[in-house]
């Protein structure tokens, strides 16, 4: 029945117009209406995104659910309203619509000021993020990409912590600085090809110098977003200041946009440059895994710790993407390269669940104690046993325990990295130790032990609402860990196609 619905437009515009509607409910005296309306819009959008999964054609790398306006949107530059998803983008849209539902539930009672605006910001951002994943036209992509910054800027700036101004500025300037380079690259590509369609970019020939410059321009934009070492320092600050919902969306979706950019732009448009500079990407990724792993260990603030852990986990994503050339060099064939890319993709989805869950857990504690400092806690299990069970589960998932989603991506990437070089795998596998060390050491200090102070003694265990969102995430984390096959099936053809693009020289 959904076959002829413009599903992609719906998942973009329903939340955006829904968000405007929520905004129109007015001041905080109408807060209950704003919440219910927001939840309804979020659930509706999630429901609308499900047919993308059920109706998805396996075995093809073609764009699906394609919508393309007959007339150009901006004729002067040959820009079209052109949407479509493949096996790489589709799961990310589902992740976005799922996460937004959680965020609306998570903000239900916690946010008491400007409720309508808060909810609206998240809904509008959801639509824009879906737009980024669905855009097939580069100009459209860029518009969504930049527009998305605004609601996040507002979310941190208004509902954020005491140091929010510094954090928002840093966040905005960092990412904006990156985006400018992407814009220049896109304009160059348009100039050469006369089109903004991404598939046209994929087809066109490019000289090596041009490729290198374009690759670097994209790299700056995407590396900031992922974030990769050394342009990662905005993330811990943004997370610490952001409200819980902001952190969840930031970690679960926004970081994925950078990684998605590598797959959609860098690798297929500049394959030769990507191959020539893979050493750079691999080095930065491994630095992220090891260096950031150590840094996470010494954090005193729970949110900072999880933020650093996010950076380390995203290192696996970029590592997996850029292994193909080394594998080819080392073993003479490409077996294992697709595994690395798929591992990176699974890691993206999994990290969305796990880091989202961990930020929600910290949010649950913060709402009660108004502190994120590890030293203010201890013995939480005594007063919040149900919460403690969730926290231990998610911490274990964060340290890559088999049977949880956290294992799948890391496992595939390490297997793939071994084919490229023993030492890549060796360094990547240190996450087994470091990841467990920082996650479980935090759990030890926060959750276990005797009750350390009066305030912990007075803690109330999670409410039904909190149980709901943690349970949904727990099911997602375990479900993906026990049976990842369906997710890989969806990606399979698109990844194979991408790999083929990467291996086809454009010189």
């Amino acid at each position: 029945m959904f076959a002829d619905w413009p599903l992609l437009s719906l998942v973009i515009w329903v939340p955006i117009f829904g968000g405007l509607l929520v905004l129109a409910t007015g001041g905080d005296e109408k807060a209950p209406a704003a919440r219910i309306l927001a939840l309804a819009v979020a659930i509706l959008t999630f429901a609308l995104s499900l047919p993308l999964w059920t109706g998805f054609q396996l075995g093809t790398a073609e764009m699906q659910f394609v919508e393309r306006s007959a007339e150009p949107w901006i004729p002067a530059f040959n820009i079209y309203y052109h949407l479509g998803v493949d096996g790489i983008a589709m799961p990310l849209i589902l992740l976005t619509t799922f996460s937004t539902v959680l965020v609306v539930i998570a903000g239900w009672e916690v946010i008491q000021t400007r409720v309508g605006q808060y909810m609206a910001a998240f809904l509008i951002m959801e639509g824009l993020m879906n737009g980024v994943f669905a855009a097939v036209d580069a100009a459209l992509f860029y518009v969504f990409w930049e527009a998305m910054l605004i609601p996040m800027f507002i979310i941190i700036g208004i509902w954020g912590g005491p140091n929010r101004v510094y954090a928002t500025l840093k966040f905005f300037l960092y990412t904006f600085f990156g985006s400018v380079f992407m814009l220049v690259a896109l304009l160059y590509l348009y100039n050469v090809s006369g089109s903004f369609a991404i598939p046209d970019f994929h087809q066109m020939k490019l000289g090596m110098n041009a490729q290198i410059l374009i690759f670097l321009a994209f790299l700056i934009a995407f590396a900031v977003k992922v974030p990769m070492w050394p342009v990662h320092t905005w993330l811990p600050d943004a997370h610490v200041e952001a409200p819980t919902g902001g952190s969840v969306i930031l970690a679960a979706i926004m970081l994925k946009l950078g990684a998605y950019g590598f797959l959609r732009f860098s690798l297929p448009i500049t394959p030769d440059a990507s191959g020539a500079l893979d050493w750079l990407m691999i080095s930065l990724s491994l630095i992220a895994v090891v260096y950031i792993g150590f840094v996470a260990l010494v954090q005193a603030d729970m949110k900072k710790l999880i933020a650093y852990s996010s950076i380390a986990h995203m290192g696996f994503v970029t590592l997996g993407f850029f292994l193909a050339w080394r594998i080819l060099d080392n073993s003479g064939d490409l077996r294992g390269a697709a595994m690395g890319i798929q591992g990176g993709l699974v890691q993206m989805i999994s990290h969305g669940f796990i880091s989202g869950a961990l930020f929600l857990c910290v949010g649950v504690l913060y709402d009660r104690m108004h502190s994120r400092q590890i030293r203010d806690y201890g013995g939480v299990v005594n007063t919040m046993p149900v919460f403690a069970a969730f926290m231990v589960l998610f911490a274990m998932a964060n340290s890559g325990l088999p049977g949880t989603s956290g294992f799948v991506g890391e496992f595939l990437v390490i297997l793939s990295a071994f084919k490229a070089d023993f030492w890549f795998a060796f360094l990547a596998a240190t996450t087994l130790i470091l990841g467990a060390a920082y996650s479980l050491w935090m759990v030890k200090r926060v959750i276990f032990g005797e009750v350390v102070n009066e305030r912990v003694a007075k803690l109330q265990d999670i409410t039904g609402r909190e149980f709901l969102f943690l349970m949904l995430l727990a099911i997602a984390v375990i479900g993906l860990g026990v049976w990842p096959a369906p997710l890989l099936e969806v990606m399979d053809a698109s990844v194979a196609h991408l790999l083929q693009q990467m291996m086809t020289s454009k010189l």
Partner: protein
Amino acid sequence: MSADDIKLIGIAIVLAPLVGAALAGLFGAYLGRKGSHWVTILGVAIAFGLSAVLFKAIVFDGAETFNGPVYTWLATEGIRFEVGFLIDRLTVMMMVVVTFVSLMVHIYTIGYMHDDPGYTRFFSYISLFTFSMLMLVMANNFMQLFFGWEAVGLVSYLLIGFWYKRPTAIYANLKAFLVNRVGDFGFLLGIAAVLMVFGSLDYATVFERAPAVVGQYFTILEGHEWEVLTVICLLLFVGAMGKSAQVPLHVWLPDSMEGPTPISALIHAATMVTAGIFMVARMSPLFELSETALSTVLVIGATTAFFMGLLGLVQNDIKRVIAYSTLSQLGYMTVALGVSAYAAGIFHLMTHAFFKALLFLGAGSVIVALHHEQDMRKMGGLYRYMPVTWITFLIGNLALIGTPGFAGFYSKDSIIEAVAESHIWGAGYAYLAVVAGVFVTALYSFRLYFLVFHGKERMDEHTRAHLHETPPVITVPLILLAIPSVVIGALYVGDMVFGNWFGSAIVVAEAHDVLGELAREFHGPLAMATHALSTLPFWLAVAGVATAWFLYLKRPDIPDRLARRLAWLYRLLTEKYYFDRFNEVVFAGGARAIGDFLWRLGDRLLIDGLVVNGSAKLVGFSAAVLRHLQTGYLYHYAFAMILGLLALLGYFVLWTPQG
């Protein structure tokens, strides 16, 4: 029995304890204490009963080995990662041992944890453990093996930290998990190497292709070539060292005694810690192809067997003595693997599972009777009050020290004989270690025995007045475990060790087949026992018991004087060779220092301080400077224009090419 039946039964065996764990864990509050223990005991009892059915089918009725998938976990590039079972003789033996000991521990727990507020949670955990361990032993591929491997690690973590209020318990469980992760780090790399070399993670495929890669090399460091199979085996063995607590990754096991005693019996003695032994035996088709790997295994095992036994001599906590004994016995098993006597290693694993579970549960019985007192200096003379515990404990001890006729004798003596027979590099050292280890084993075992059950009653008056035998839920499992501790050795040594009982499950190269050599001299269990009376190990064991009797019953003043006289040695032993101190300072401290350094210098000073905020300041500074140019005075602007005009004119005049 058809393959489909075996598969269905296999699924039921795995799921029964998982369902029990889930019910007790999620709905413990509704089920109540009775409901929780019944549902989990039922789950494990089903698993045990069905394991016995499979054991009968495979061993007695000659059913085919089952090797097949249950479901596809994921597929990529044509490689299917599956969850599946390999059910052969090795598997069914492990399944029966695991589910039997687990069942005993479940029943025992009713008594031991009677007053604990975490009663239902405990049952949930040990059932979850049973599920994980079964997944581990029944796996037919490396991915699932790793799943089981880590899952038992998780449950071990949860159970060591079961009493989460105790600082020592939550320190110990973090330590256990991290040390195990160091092992898993190697193990995972080993699995990655297997996939790279063989293109598959299925045992059957890998074993089939293994002989073809002999003589292939990796370059890991420039200029150093490593044989592929050696690298794979060594990496896998690092995993075994973590799980089976071999030096230097043994440090977590003594501390794991912070957990409740039933799990010390189940997890940290009988089953989980033997996973490494099982794994290496399972991988015998690979290890057989690398003598370097075998020698490494042998030397590490021998070192663990002897030196960890010594530490048992100076401990005063009853459970820690048994823990060091476990380390030492795991060393014996590892030694067996190193000399390719896999069957002997697995046989010792089995007998050890029974008598060590018995010893731990016996110790638990003592601990309960003394109101959770674990210090042996406050025990003594208990044989008067606790006859069942006393006799069963004595049986366990006799089995442990290798008294001819008892289960431990047959397995341990086979290992010692196998080492004597072996010519692999390191066998000489290993022989010394395992023979000397016999004396040490007898000494620490009977030191414990005399201190606890005989001699002066050193507990306080109040405790003594209330001393009595523990209830049947505790003593019945002791009796049920004491039976195999006596008879199982004599019953099975002929078949399992010398009779090629495991069939195709264990592969031994012609040149390493020490058990095959020994089999020719084997004339039944009785002859083996009588022959032993004239051998060195037997008299060393007797000497050990006699020394213990002299030092701890006859002249209890001597040990203290010895400790003072040999203060440096005593200190070395009580400090556990300084492994813990070293790890604490170098690894834990080092990691924190590195993290702190990178964070302060890298992130905050260089990246944020210099580059990010630096550029912001630079922009601010430039703006401040440039601001002065915009003064608003017309003559300033006019002056600037003239300067610019002059500069341009100069440029054209001077640099324009002539012509």
